[in-house]
Protein backbone atom coordinates (compact mmCIF):
# COMPACT_ATOMS: atom_id res chain seq x y z
CA UNK A 1 0.00 0.00 0.00
CA UNK A 2 1.23 3.43 -0.87
CA UNK A 3 0.95 6.11 1.78
CA UNK A 4 3.66 8.74 1.75
CA UNK A 5 2.29 10.76 4.62
CA UNK A 6 4.38 11.10 7.77
CA UNK A 7 3.01 12.39 11.06
CA UNK A 8 5.49 15.21 11.71
CA UNK A 9 8.01 17.50 10.10
CA UNK A 10 10.62 16.12 12.52
CA UNK A 11 10.17 12.60 11.19
CA UNK A 12 10.10 13.87 7.62
CA UNK A 13 13.60 15.39 7.84
CA UNK A 14 15.12 12.96 10.36
CA UNK A 15 17.62 11.34 7.98
CA UNK A 16 19.08 14.42 6.30
CA UNK A 17 22.79 13.87 6.78
CA UNK A 18 25.73 16.18 7.32
CA UNK A 19 27.14 17.30 3.99
CA UNK A 20 23.90 16.71 2.12
CA UNK A 21 22.84 18.80 -0.85
CA UNK A 22 19.40 20.16 -0.03
CA UNK A 23 17.17 22.00 -2.47
CA UNK A 24 14.67 24.31 -0.80
CA UNK A 25 11.67 25.61 -2.72
CA UNK A 26 10.49 29.17 -2.74
CA UNK A 27 11.12 32.52 -4.37
CA UNK A 28 11.44 34.97 -1.55
CA UNK A 29 8.82 33.91 0.95
CA UNK A 30 6.40 32.52 -1.64
CA UNK A 31 6.69 28.76 -1.44
CA UNK A 32 9.27 28.71 1.34
CA UNK A 33 8.76 25.53 3.44
CA UNK A 34 9.47 27.28 6.71
CA UNK A 35 8.27 24.50 9.00
CA UNK A 36 10.44 21.92 7.24
CA UNK A 37 13.44 24.25 7.43
CA UNK A 38 12.87 24.82 11.14
CA UNK A 39 12.64 21.06 11.65
CA UNK A 40 15.95 20.76 9.82
CA UNK A 41 17.48 23.33 12.17
CA UNK A 42 16.22 21.32 15.15
CA UNK A 43 17.54 18.13 13.60
CA UNK A 44 21.07 19.48 13.47
CA UNK A 45 22.49 18.43 10.10
CA UNK A 46 25.43 20.63 9.11
CA UNK A 47 27.87 21.36 6.33
CA UNK A 48 24.95 21.48 3.92
CA UNK A 49 24.93 22.71 0.34
CA UNK A 50 21.65 24.52 -0.11
CA UNK A 51 19.99 25.40 -3.42
CA UNK A 52 17.44 28.21 -3.30
CA UNK A 53 16.81 31.28 -5.42
CA UNK A 54 17.61 33.54 -2.45
CA UNK A 55 19.13 33.35 1.01
CA UNK A 56 16.12 34.09 3.18
CA UNK A 57 15.26 37.15 5.21
CA UNK A 58 15.25 38.11 8.85
CA UNK A 59 16.23 35.29 11.18
CA UNK A 60 13.63 32.68 10.32
CA UNK A 61 13.42 29.92 7.71
CA UNK A 62 16.39 29.71 5.36
CA UNK A 63 18.10 32.73 6.94
CA UNK A 64 17.88 31.01 10.32
CA UNK A 65 19.39 27.83 8.90
CA UNK A 66 22.28 29.88 7.51
CA UNK A 67 22.62 31.83 10.76
CA UNK A 68 22.84 28.55 12.69
CA UNK A 69 25.98 27.81 10.69
CA UNK A 70 24.59 24.75 8.98
CA UNK A 71 25.12 25.87 5.41
CA UNK A 72 28.60 25.55 3.93
CA UNK A 73 27.56 26.63 0.45
CA UNK A 74 24.65 28.39 -1.22
CA UNK A 75 23.77 27.87 -4.87
CA UNK A 76 21.44 30.70 -5.82
CA UNK A 77 20.67 33.56 -8.16
CA UNK A 78 19.89 36.42 -5.80
CA UNK A 79 21.46 36.23 -2.31
CA UNK A 80 20.51 39.80 -1.52
CA UNK A 81 17.14 41.18 -0.62
CA UNK A 82 15.20 43.27 1.79
CA UNK A 83 15.77 42.18 5.36
CA UNK A 84 18.51 39.83 4.27
CA UNK A 85 21.48 40.40 6.56
CA UNK A 86 22.51 36.92 7.68
CA UNK A 87 24.01 35.72 4.42
CA UNK A 88 25.77 38.97 3.49
CA UNK A 89 27.57 39.06 6.82
CA UNK A 90 28.79 35.47 6.64
CA UNK A 91 29.74 35.93 3.00
CA UNK A 92 31.80 39.03 3.67
CA UNK A 93 33.55 37.15 6.46
CA UNK A 94 34.34 34.30 4.09
CA UNK A 95 32.33 31.89 6.20
CA UNK A 96 30.00 30.67 3.49
CA UNK A 97 30.61 29.74 -0.12
CA UNK A 98 28.46 31.11 -2.93
CA UNK A 99 27.81 29.70 -6.38
CA UNK A 100 25.93 32.44 -8.21
CA UNK A 101 23.77 31.15 -11.07
CA UNK A 102 21.46 33.15 -13.34
CA UNK A 103 17.89 32.45 -12.33
CA UNK A 104 16.77 30.75 -15.53
CA UNK A 105 19.93 28.70 -15.71
CA UNK A 106 19.38 27.64 -12.10
CA UNK A 107 15.79 26.59 -12.86
CA UNK A 108 16.85 24.68 -15.97
CA UNK A 109 19.82 23.02 -14.26
CA UNK A 110 17.47 21.70 -11.59
CA UNK A 111 14.96 20.47 -14.16
CA UNK A 112 17.77 18.84 -16.14
CA UNK A 113 19.02 17.10 -13.01
CA UNK A 114 15.57 15.69 -12.42
CA UNK A 115 15.09 14.74 -16.07
CA UNK A 116 18.31 12.75 -16.48
CA UNK A 117 20.01 15.39 -18.61
CA UNK A 118 23.62 15.82 -17.50
CA UNK A 119 24.26 19.05 -19.41
CA UNK A 120 22.72 21.54 -21.82
CA UNK A 121 23.65 24.73 -23.60
CA UNK A 122 22.28 28.20 -23.01
CA UNK A 123 23.11 31.68 -24.28
CA UNK A 124 22.51 33.07 -20.81
CA UNK A 125 25.68 34.59 -19.27
CA UNK A 126 27.72 34.37 -22.46
CA UNK A 127 30.44 37.01 -22.27
CA UNK A 128 29.93 37.64 -18.57
CA UNK A 129 31.92 36.64 -15.52
CA UNK A 130 29.29 34.00 -14.73
CA UNK A 131 30.48 32.13 -17.82
CA UNK A 132 34.05 32.05 -16.57
CA UNK A 133 35.40 28.53 -16.62
CA UNK A 134 32.40 27.18 -18.49
CA UNK A 135 32.72 25.51 -21.85
CA UNK A 136 31.69 27.77 -24.69
CA UNK A 137 30.35 26.56 -27.98
CA UNK A 138 28.69 27.86 -31.12
CA UNK A 139 25.49 26.53 -32.60
CA UNK A 140 24.23 28.13 -35.81
CA UNK A 141 26.70 31.00 -35.39
CA UNK A 142 25.51 31.94 -31.91
CA UNK A 143 27.54 31.58 -28.72
CA UNK A 144 26.40 29.37 -25.85
CA UNK A 145 27.82 28.01 -22.62
CA UNK A 146 27.41 24.51 -21.28
CA UNK A 147 25.61 24.14 -17.97
CA UNK A 148 25.37 20.99 -15.88
CA UNK A 149 22.27 19.36 -14.43
CA UNK A 150 21.87 19.72 -10.70
CA UNK A 151 20.57 17.08 -8.29
CA UNK A 152 20.00 16.97 -4.57
CA UNK A 153 20.00 14.38 -1.84
CA UNK A 154 16.88 15.98 -0.41
CA UNK A 155 14.37 18.55 -1.62
CA UNK A 156 12.15 20.44 0.80
CA UNK A 157 9.09 22.03 -0.75
CA UNK A 158 5.73 23.47 0.20
CA UNK A 159 2.38 23.08 -1.51
CA UNK A 160 -1.28 23.84 -1.09
CA UNK A 161 -2.64 20.32 -1.36
CA UNK A 162 -1.14 16.84 -1.61
CA UNK A 163 -2.66 13.39 -1.78
CA UNK A 164 -1.08 10.41 -0.06
CA UNK A 165 0.43 9.29 -3.38
CA UNK A 166 2.37 12.56 -3.41
CA UNK A 167 0.44 14.30 -6.18
CA UNK A 168 0.73 18.04 -5.61
CA UNK A 169 -0.95 21.31 -6.48
CA UNK A 170 0.40 24.71 -5.51
CA UNK A 171 -0.73 28.20 -4.64
CA UNK A 172 -0.23 31.02 -7.14
CA UNK A 173 3.39 32.22 -7.41
CA UNK A 174 4.43 29.87 -4.60
CA UNK A 175 4.81 27.18 -7.27
CA UNK A 176 8.11 28.57 -8.66
CA UNK A 177 11.00 26.14 -8.01
CA UNK A 178 9.03 23.38 -6.27
CA UNK A 179 8.17 21.23 -9.31
CA UNK A 180 11.72 20.99 -10.70
CA UNK A 181 13.15 20.49 -7.21
CA UNK A 182 10.69 17.65 -6.62
CA UNK A 183 12.13 16.05 -9.75
CA UNK A 184 15.76 16.64 -8.82
CA UNK A 185 15.65 15.48 -5.21
CA UNK A 186 16.51 11.85 -4.49
CA UNK A 187 14.22 12.24 -1.49
CA UNK A 188 11.58 14.93 -1.91
CA UNK A 189 9.84 16.03 1.26
CA UNK A 190 6.68 18.09 0.97
CA UNK A 191 4.80 20.14 3.51
CA UNK A 192 1.19 20.49 2.41
CA UNK A 193 -1.46 22.71 3.93
CA UNK A 194 -3.90 19.91 3.20
CA UNK A 195 -3.38 16.18 2.67
CA UNK A 196 -6.16 14.26 0.93
CA UNK A 197 -6.86 10.74 -0.28
CA UNK A 198 -5.88 9.65 -3.81
CA UNK A 199 -8.64 10.69 -6.16
CA UNK A 200 -9.41 13.93 -4.37
CA UNK A 201 -7.24 15.91 -6.80
CA UNK A 202 -8.43 15.99 -10.42
CA UNK A 203 -5.76 14.13 -12.46
CA UNK A 204 -5.90 16.90 -15.09
CA UNK A 205 -4.70 19.58 -12.65
CA UNK A 206 -1.92 17.74 -10.83
CA UNK A 207 1.22 19.84 -11.19
CA UNK A 208 3.75 17.49 -9.61
CA UNK A 209 2.90 13.79 -10.10
CA UNK A 210 3.46 11.59 -7.05
CA UNK A 211 6.38 9.74 -8.60
CA UNK A 212 8.57 12.75 -7.81
CA UNK A 213 7.59 12.84 -4.14
CA UNK A 214 8.79 10.55 -1.35
CA UNK A 215 7.30 12.09 1.79
CA UNK A 216 4.31 14.27 2.60
CA UNK A 217 3.60 15.96 5.91
CA UNK A 218 0.65 18.16 6.73
CA UNK A 219 1.34 21.69 7.99
CA UNK A 220 -2.11 23.12 8.17
CA UNK A 221 -1.40 26.78 8.74
CA UNK A 222 2.12 27.45 7.51
CA UNK A 223 3.79 30.62 8.72
CA UNK A 224 4.55 33.44 6.32
CA UNK A 225 8.14 34.61 6.41
CA UNK A 226 7.25 38.29 6.09
CA UNK A 227 4.93 38.10 9.10
CA UNK A 228 7.55 36.36 11.22
CA UNK A 229 10.16 38.92 10.18
CA UNK A 230 7.79 41.81 10.88
CA UNK A 231 7.12 40.31 14.32
CA UNK A 232 10.86 40.15 14.98
CA UNK A 233 10.89 36.37 15.35
CA UNK A 234 14.28 34.70 15.48
CA UNK A 235 14.39 30.91 15.14
CA UNK A 236 14.93 28.86 17.17
Amino acid at each position, binding site marked *: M*IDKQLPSVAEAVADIHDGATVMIGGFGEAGSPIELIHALIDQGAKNLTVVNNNTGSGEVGLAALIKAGRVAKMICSYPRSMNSTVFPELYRNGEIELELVPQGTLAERIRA*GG*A*GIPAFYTATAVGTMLADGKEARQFDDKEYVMERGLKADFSLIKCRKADTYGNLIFNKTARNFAPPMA*MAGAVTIVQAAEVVA*PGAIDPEIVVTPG*IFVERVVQVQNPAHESELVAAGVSYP
Partner: protein
Amino acid sequence: MSQERPRIGLDRDEMAARVAQDIPDGSYVNLGIGIPERITRFVPEGRELIYHTENGLLGMGPSPEEGEGEPELINAGKRQVTAIPGASYFQHPDSFAMIRGGHLDLCVLGALQVAANGDLANWSTGGPDAIPAVGGAMDLVVGVKSVFVVTQHCTKHGDPKLVEACSYPLTGLGCVDRIYTDLAVIDVTPEGFQLVELSPGVSFDYVAERTGAPLLPIPTATAT
Protein backbone atom coordinates in the same frame (compact mmCIF):
# COMPACT_ATOMS: atom_id res chain seq x y z
CA MET B 1 18.63 -32.05 -27.44
CA SER B 2 16.12 -33.51 -25.05
CA GLN B 3 12.87 -34.85 -26.33
CA GLU B 4 10.23 -32.18 -27.12
CA ARG B 5 6.92 -32.47 -25.39
CA PRO B 6 3.90 -30.64 -26.77
CA ARG B 7 4.15 -28.25 -23.87
CA ILE B 8 7.00 -27.59 -21.50
CA GLY B 9 7.55 -24.65 -19.17
CA LEU B 10 5.23 -21.75 -18.48
CA ASP B 11 2.55 -20.35 -20.72
CA ARG B 12 2.21 -16.62 -21.28
CA ASP B 13 -0.04 -15.99 -18.30
CA GLU B 14 2.19 -18.07 -16.05
CA MET B 15 5.21 -16.09 -17.19
CA ALA B 16 3.38 -12.83 -16.41
CA ALA B 17 2.37 -14.21 -13.02
CA ARG B 18 5.95 -15.21 -12.26
CA VAL B 19 7.19 -11.68 -13.00
CA ALA B 20 4.42 -10.19 -10.88
CA GLN B 21 5.73 -12.03 -7.81
CA ASP B 22 9.01 -10.12 -8.00
CA ILE B 23 7.65 -6.57 -8.17
CA PRO B 24 7.83 -4.90 -4.75
CA ASP B 25 4.87 -3.14 -3.20
CA GLY B 26 4.69 0.53 -4.06
CA SER B 27 6.70 0.29 -7.28
CA TYR B 28 6.23 2.65 -10.20
CA VAL B 29 6.15 0.35 -13.20
CA ASN B 30 6.10 0.66 -16.98
CA LEU B 31 4.91 -2.43 -18.81
CA GLY B 32 5.62 -3.10 -22.48
CA ILE B 33 3.20 -4.49 -25.01
CA GLY B 34 2.41 -8.24 -25.09
CA ILE B 35 3.17 -10.52 -22.14
CA PRO B 36 4.23 -7.58 -19.90
CA GLU B 37 0.72 -6.10 -20.17
CA ARG B 38 -0.68 -9.25 -18.56
CA ILE B 39 1.31 -8.75 -15.38
CA THR B 40 -1.29 -6.42 -13.87
CA ARG B 41 -3.71 -9.34 -13.53
CA PHE B 42 -1.36 -11.32 -11.32
CA VAL B 43 -0.13 -8.81 -8.76
CA PRO B 44 -0.29 -10.55 -5.36
CA GLU B 45 -2.96 -9.46 -2.90
CA GLY B 46 -1.88 -6.56 -0.70
CA ARG B 47 0.60 -5.06 -3.14
CA GLU B 48 -0.09 -1.72 -4.76
CA LEU B 49 1.71 -0.87 -7.98
CA ILE B 50 1.36 2.34 -9.96
CA TYR B 51 1.50 1.96 -13.70
CA HIS B 52 3.08 4.56 -15.94
CA THR B 53 2.30 4.80 -19.60
CA GLU B 54 4.75 6.99 -21.44
CA ASN B 55 2.08 8.80 -23.43
CA GLY B 56 1.23 10.79 -20.33
CA LEU B 57 -0.54 8.93 -17.55
CA LEU B 58 0.64 7.78 -14.14
CA GLY B 59 -1.93 5.57 -12.43
CA MET B 60 -3.15 3.66 -15.45
CA GLY B 61 -6.04 1.35 -14.65
CA PRO B 62 -7.49 -1.67 -16.45
CA SER B 63 -9.22 -1.65 -19.84
CA PRO B 64 -12.57 0.11 -19.82
CA GLU B 65 -15.84 -1.78 -19.78
CA GLU B 66 -17.23 -2.52 -23.22
CA GLY B 67 -18.50 0.70 -24.74
CA GLU B 68 -17.05 2.95 -22.06
CA GLY B 69 -13.66 3.63 -23.59
CA GLU B 70 -12.48 7.03 -24.75
CA PRO B 71 -10.34 7.65 -27.82
CA GLU B 72 -8.29 10.15 -25.83
CA LEU B 73 -7.54 7.89 -22.88
CA ILE B 74 -5.13 5.36 -24.26
CA ASN B 75 -1.88 3.64 -23.36
CA ALA B 76 1.45 3.51 -25.19
CA GLY B 77 0.14 0.60 -27.23
CA LYS B 78 -2.70 2.93 -28.28
CA ARG B 79 -5.31 0.79 -26.57
CA GLN B 80 -8.05 2.37 -24.49
CA VAL B 81 -7.42 2.26 -20.76
CA THR B 82 -8.75 3.84 -17.58
CA ALA B 83 -7.23 5.99 -14.83
CA ILE B 84 -7.26 5.08 -11.14
CA PRO B 85 -8.08 7.48 -8.30
CA GLY B 86 -4.82 9.31 -7.64
CA ALA B 87 -3.78 9.29 -11.29
CA SER B 88 -2.23 12.25 -13.08
CA TYR B 89 -1.99 13.34 -16.71
CA PHE B 90 1.09 15.15 -18.03
CA GLN B 91 2.87 16.14 -21.20
CA HIS B 92 5.48 14.06 -23.00
CA PRO B 93 8.59 15.91 -21.78
CA ASP B 94 7.47 15.30 -18.19
CA SER B 95 6.67 11.69 -18.90
CA PHE B 96 10.15 11.05 -20.24
CA ALA B 97 11.70 13.09 -17.44
CA MET B 98 10.23 10.39 -15.20
CA ILE B 99 11.86 7.73 -17.35
CA ARG B 100 15.19 9.35 -18.19
CA GLY B 101 15.56 10.84 -14.72
CA GLY B 102 15.48 7.47 -13.01
CA HIS B 103 12.15 7.89 -11.26
CA LEU B 104 10.53 4.67 -12.45
CA ASP B 105 11.40 1.61 -10.42
CA LEU B 106 10.89 -1.04 -13.02
CA CYS B 107 10.03 -1.68 -16.63
CA VAL B 108 9.17 -5.02 -18.14
CA LEU B 109 9.83 -5.37 -21.85
CA GLY B 110 9.74 -7.98 -24.56
CA ALA B 111 12.90 -8.94 -26.41
CA LEU B 112 14.17 -10.19 -29.73
CA GLN B 113 17.56 -10.95 -28.18
CA VAL B 114 19.36 -10.44 -24.88
CA ALA B 115 23.13 -10.77 -24.76
CA ALA B 116 25.13 -12.22 -21.86
CA ASN B 117 26.40 -8.69 -21.08
CA GLY B 118 22.85 -7.35 -20.80
CA ASP B 119 22.63 -5.78 -24.23
CA LEU B 120 19.06 -5.76 -25.48
CA ALA B 121 17.64 -5.89 -28.99
CA ASN B 122 13.89 -5.45 -29.08
CA TRP B 123 12.96 -2.81 -31.62
CA SER B 124 14.03 -3.91 -35.07
CA THR B 125 14.94 -7.04 -36.94
CA GLY B 126 17.05 -4.86 -39.19
CA GLY B 127 15.46 -6.37 -42.29
CA PRO B 128 15.81 -4.33 -45.48
CA ASP B 129 12.04 -4.04 -45.81
CA ALA B 130 11.29 -3.36 -42.13
CA ILE B 131 9.89 0.04 -41.23
CA PRO B 132 12.12 1.13 -38.34
CA ALA B 133 10.07 2.17 -35.31
CA VAL B 134 11.57 2.60 -31.86
CA GLY B 135 9.00 4.41 -29.68
CA GLY B 136 10.10 4.79 -26.09
CA ALA B 137 12.14 1.59 -25.75
CA MET B 138 15.58 3.25 -25.88
CA ASP B 139 14.54 5.80 -23.26
CA LEU B 140 13.15 3.15 -20.92
CA VAL B 141 16.21 0.90 -20.95
CA VAL B 142 18.64 3.68 -20.01
CA GLY B 143 16.41 5.45 -17.51
CA VAL B 144 14.39 2.97 -15.49
CA LYS B 145 16.08 1.62 -12.37
CA SER B 146 15.45 -2.09 -13.10
CA VAL B 147 14.86 -3.54 -16.54
CA PHE B 148 13.17 -6.92 -16.68
CA VAL B 149 12.70 -8.83 -19.92
CA VAL B 150 9.95 -11.37 -20.35
CA THR B 151 10.14 -13.50 -23.45
CA GLN B 152 9.91 -16.97 -24.84
CA HIS B 153 13.25 -18.64 -24.33
CA CYS B 154 13.56 -19.39 -28.05
CA THR B 155 12.17 -17.99 -31.28
CA LYS B 156 9.42 -19.77 -33.19
CA HIS B 157 12.18 -21.39 -35.20
CA GLY B 158 13.81 -22.71 -32.04
CA ASP B 159 16.75 -20.32 -32.05
CA PRO B 160 17.96 -19.01 -28.69
CA LYS B 161 16.99 -15.45 -27.81
CA LEU B 162 19.57 -15.36 -25.03
CA VAL B 163 22.80 -15.01 -26.95
CA GLU B 164 26.49 -14.23 -26.70
CA ALA B 165 26.04 -11.01 -28.66
CA CYS B 166 22.96 -9.52 -30.28
CA SER B 167 22.80 -9.75 -34.06
CA TYR B 168 19.76 -7.47 -34.30
CA PRO B 169 20.05 -3.68 -33.91
CA LEU B 170 20.52 -2.79 -30.24
CA THR B 171 18.02 -1.00 -28.02
CA GLY B 172 20.56 -0.40 -25.28
CA LEU B 173 23.90 -1.51 -23.88
CA GLY B 174 24.16 -3.68 -20.78
CA CYS B 175 20.73 -2.61 -19.64
CA VAL B 176 18.90 -5.84 -18.81
CA ASP B 177 18.85 -6.94 -15.18
CA ARG B 178 16.73 -10.06 -15.27
CA ILE B 179 15.06 -12.30 -17.84
CA TYR B 180 11.88 -14.29 -17.36
CA THR B 181 11.23 -16.97 -19.96
CA ASP B 182 8.89 -19.91 -20.27
CA LEU B 183 11.77 -22.08 -19.05
CA ALA B 184 13.61 -20.11 -16.38
CA VAL B 185 14.40 -16.94 -14.51
CA ILE B 186 17.90 -15.74 -15.36
CA ASP B 187 19.91 -12.81 -14.04
CA VAL B 188 22.40 -10.86 -16.10
CA THR B 189 25.57 -10.66 -14.00
CA PRO B 190 29.12 -9.50 -14.64
CA GLU B 191 29.91 -13.21 -15.17
CA GLY B 192 27.10 -13.64 -17.70
CA PHE B 193 23.75 -15.42 -17.56
CA GLN B 194 23.08 -16.69 -14.05
CA LEU B 195 20.23 -19.13 -13.51
CA VAL B 196 17.92 -18.07 -10.69
CA GLU B 197 15.06 -20.49 -11.02
CA LEU B 198 13.88 -23.25 -13.33
CA SER B 199 10.26 -23.52 -14.39
CA PRO B 200 8.50 -26.59 -13.00
CA GLY B 201 9.54 -29.73 -14.84
CA VAL B 202 12.39 -28.04 -16.69
CA SER B 203 15.98 -29.19 -16.23
CA PHE B 204 19.13 -27.11 -16.15
CA ASP B 205 20.50 -28.91 -19.18
CA TYR B 206 17.29 -28.32 -21.10
CA VAL B 207 17.61 -24.59 -20.52
CA ALA B 208 21.37 -24.48 -21.05
CA GLU B 209 21.02 -26.24 -24.40
CA ARG B 210 18.56 -23.57 -25.52
CA THR B 211 20.68 -20.68 -24.33
CA GLY B 212 23.13 -19.17 -26.79
CA ALA B 213 25.76 -18.32 -24.18
CA PRO B 214 27.09 -20.08 -21.07
CA LEU B 215 24.49 -20.42 -18.30
CA LEU B 216 25.79 -20.44 -14.73
CA PRO B 217 23.95 -22.90 -12.46
CA ILE B 218 22.33 -21.82 -9.22
CA PRO B 219 25.32 -21.69 -6.84
CA THR B 220 23.73 -23.08 -3.70
CA ALA B 221 21.49 -25.72 -5.27
CA THR B 222 22.36 -28.83 -7.24
CA ALA B 223 21.51 -28.42 -10.88
CA THR B 224 18.83 -30.95 -11.69
